[in-house]
């Protein structure tokens, strides 16, 4: 490692403190400029180009020609910072913009996402992260290859990885396009390619090292941008700037207002159907979704590979704690956005005369995210009103008010009466969330192709230079394909994102966990389990989604892991017992990764890496 990077690691606190200070100053300057009459469009441009510029600068400064720097950031990332980077890696456009909207729409049932996208880190910490770190190679398929006898298991790992990650990365680039087009006023297709440039410039030169330090910077922006509007909203509604505690009051008021508005299924009511009665199937789907999202979390390669970058096994474990802490800061705030927005709608929008509606309803109506659909021709001025028939009495009833889930976070600054600069900040935050996740996913896919497929299977004798060139070329290719698919605005691929969790969980989790925790797991057993788990999950998804097949036991296909995961565990177990036990060398290998100290004893030396 070079002297330059050592001093950088020693001064991380200082570097990021200056960075945060600079960002705050920049925001204040823009706020002053806004008061002086600088148009909103300029402020939007400043936020988007300046933040992308900073990420690009970090990317260029972190360029590297070393393989271990490129794949695992030189394994020098301290637990705390790896936690922040994982937080940004994890929280996507869907978390930043979509989550609060989902909670607004679904109430208690939406909390399955809050629980499911956090609790999985417990599984990462206790079952996988320390052992994968000790194993100490570059990718998740590396582990499968070393543990299960080579290229068959490795290939299967790569297939599951790409299937789960590709739809996910397309959705992130889609999110970047939406945000950039809205705030830059350019076409969506063009915005997608602007975003793509932002992503590539971060990751291409420096691989994991650049992505890591960019993600830390992106986390700082995204969490600041998420907290400020809702803190302000909390002050406006309750006088106290702690939304996470104060939205209890909002929930109580919502619950009190619901009967008069004719709502039977209350916001806080658990497992109830539209009539407000207990619904067993809703409860079953709630818990299965939590399970699939959690196990999926512990199987997604772009998350697991972050724990390859810490300096030690001990720090890998702590780092999982920091990761969840930084994710928790956003997720325990999201329900307050939903509650405050809902209260605002119930108190200050519904029941008003059409000509008295607050300014934000009109403003976001023009963008097509809100609709006040009382008049017969409402659809002419509000795109959201298509298909809604109002009673034209000049008063807005609840059934006539339509709001897109994305509007909850995006419109809150305006609802709270904040200046436009905060809307720009939120755009920068959403962009940071989408870019950081896209970086992590693209790197995971490109590394699987360049390291696992090209270097491991096609040309094991390739020298460092050739390998890094292959990585970069593949990164660009995957990014362009993903951006092209995103520019087509595919509706199905967006709904496929939530499937990524079930797919990864069914295909990878049993093989990874049993590989560490059950020595008797054999090569044939693990590969059979991966194929069956992955196959069952995909079969259920595809037949129910596209061919109208009936649901099994009424379980939604987003939770297809409910069938895939048990099937994979069972097949791995049974087939392993039917095949001869792993060799003594393999058992020694497992022993060696179970203990933090000491060398890793590979059963097959050809599966090792040149360090």
């Amino acid at each position, binding site marked *: 490692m070079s002297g330059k990077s050592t001093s950088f690691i020693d001064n991380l606190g200082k570097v990021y403190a200056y960075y945060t200070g600079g960002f705050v100053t920049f925001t204040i300057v823009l706020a002053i400029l806004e008061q002086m009459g600088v148009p909103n469009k300029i402020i939007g441009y400043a936020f988007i180009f300046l933040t992308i510029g900073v990420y690009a600068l970090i990317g260029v400064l972190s360029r590297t020609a070393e393989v271990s720097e490129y794949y695992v950031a030189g394994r020098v990332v301290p637990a705390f910072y790896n936690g922040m980077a994982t937080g940004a890696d994890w929280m996507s456009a869907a978390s930043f913009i979509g989550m609060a909207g989902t909670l607004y729409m679904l109430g*208690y049932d939406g909390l399955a996402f809050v629980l499911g996208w956090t609790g999985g880190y417990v599984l990462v910490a206790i079952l996988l992260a320390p052992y994968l770190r000790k194993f100490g190679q570059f990718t998740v398929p590396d582990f499968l290859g070393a543990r299960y006898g080579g290229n068959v298991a490795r290939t299967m790992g790569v297939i599951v990885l790409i299937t789960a990650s590709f739809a996910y990365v397309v959705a992130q680039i889609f999110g970047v396009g939406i945000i950039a087009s809205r705030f830059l006023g350019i076409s969506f297709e063009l915005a997608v390619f602007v975003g793509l440039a932002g992503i590539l410039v971060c990751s291409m030169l420096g691989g994991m090292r650049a992505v890591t330090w960019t993600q830390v910077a992106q986390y700082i922006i995204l969490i600041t941008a998420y907290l400020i509007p809702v803190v302000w909203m909390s002050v406006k509604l309750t006088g106290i700037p702690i939304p*996470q505690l104060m939205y*209890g009051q909002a929930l109580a008021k919502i619950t009190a207002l619901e009967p008069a508005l004719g709502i039977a299924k209350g916001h806080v009511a658990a497992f109830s159907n539209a009539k407000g009665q207990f619904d067993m199937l809703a409860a079953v789907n709630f818990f299965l979704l939590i399970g699939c999202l959690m196990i999926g979390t512990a199987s997604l390669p772009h998350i697991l590979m972050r724990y390859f970058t810490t300096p030690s096994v001990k720090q890998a*474990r702590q780092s999982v704690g920091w990761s969840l802490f930084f994710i928790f800061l956003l*997720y325990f705030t999201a329900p307050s956005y939903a509650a405050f927005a809902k209260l605002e709608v119930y108190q200050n929008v519904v029941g008003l005369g059409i000509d008295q509606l607050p300014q934000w309803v009109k403003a976001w109506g023009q963008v097509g995210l809100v609709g006040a659909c009382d008049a017969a021709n409402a659809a002419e001025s509000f795109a959201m009103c298509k298909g809604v028939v109002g009673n034209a009495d000049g008063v807005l009833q609840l059934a006539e008010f339509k709001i897109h889930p994305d509007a909850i976070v995006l419109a809150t600054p305006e609802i709270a009466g904040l200046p436009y600069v905060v809307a720009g900040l939120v755009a920068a935050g959403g962009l940071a969330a989408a870019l950081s996740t896209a970086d992590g996913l693209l790197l995971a896919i490109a590394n699987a192709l360049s390291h696992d497929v090209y270097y491991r299977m096609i040309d094991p004798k390739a020298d460092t230079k050739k390998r890094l060139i292959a990585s970069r070329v593949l990164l660009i290719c995957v990014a362009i394909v993903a951006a092209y698919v995103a520019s087509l605005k595919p509706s199905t691929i967006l709904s496929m994102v939530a499937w990524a969790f079930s797919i990864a969980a069914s295909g990878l989790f049993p093989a990874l966990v049993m590989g560490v925790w059950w020595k008797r797991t054999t090569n044939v057993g693990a590969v059979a389990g991966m194929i069956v788990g992955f196959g069952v999950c995909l079969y259920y998804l595809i037949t129910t989604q596209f061919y109208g097949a009936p649901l099994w036991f009424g379980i939604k296909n987003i939770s297809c892991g409910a069938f895939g995961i048990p099937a994979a565990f069972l097949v791995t177990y049974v087939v392993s017992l039917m095949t001869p036990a792993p060799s003594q060398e393999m058992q020694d290998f497992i*022993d*060696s990764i179970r203990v933090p100290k000491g060398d890793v004893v590979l059963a097959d030396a050809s599966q090792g890496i040149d360090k």
Partner: protein
Amino acid sequence: MSNQPLTPERAQEYWKRTSGLMWLMLGIWFVTSFVIHFFAPTLNTISFIGFPLGFYMAAQGSLIIFVVAIFWFASKQNQIDEEFGVADE
């Protein structure tokens, strides 16, 4: 094996303690993720710092337990590592 830090007996003991901690954590995880939320409709009749308790547990309570539990696990496992002399830093 030359560079392995433990005798086979100590290694077995180490893994027993490590697995024990893992199962305990898995239990905590299961209860926090699922079991307490089975009772959400009932818990919702109780008020906790202004929230219906069932909602609160799913929106914040469980999350706080997850974070605390992981840090507790990390320090506990580190204690075990040090006791057996296998900590890696």
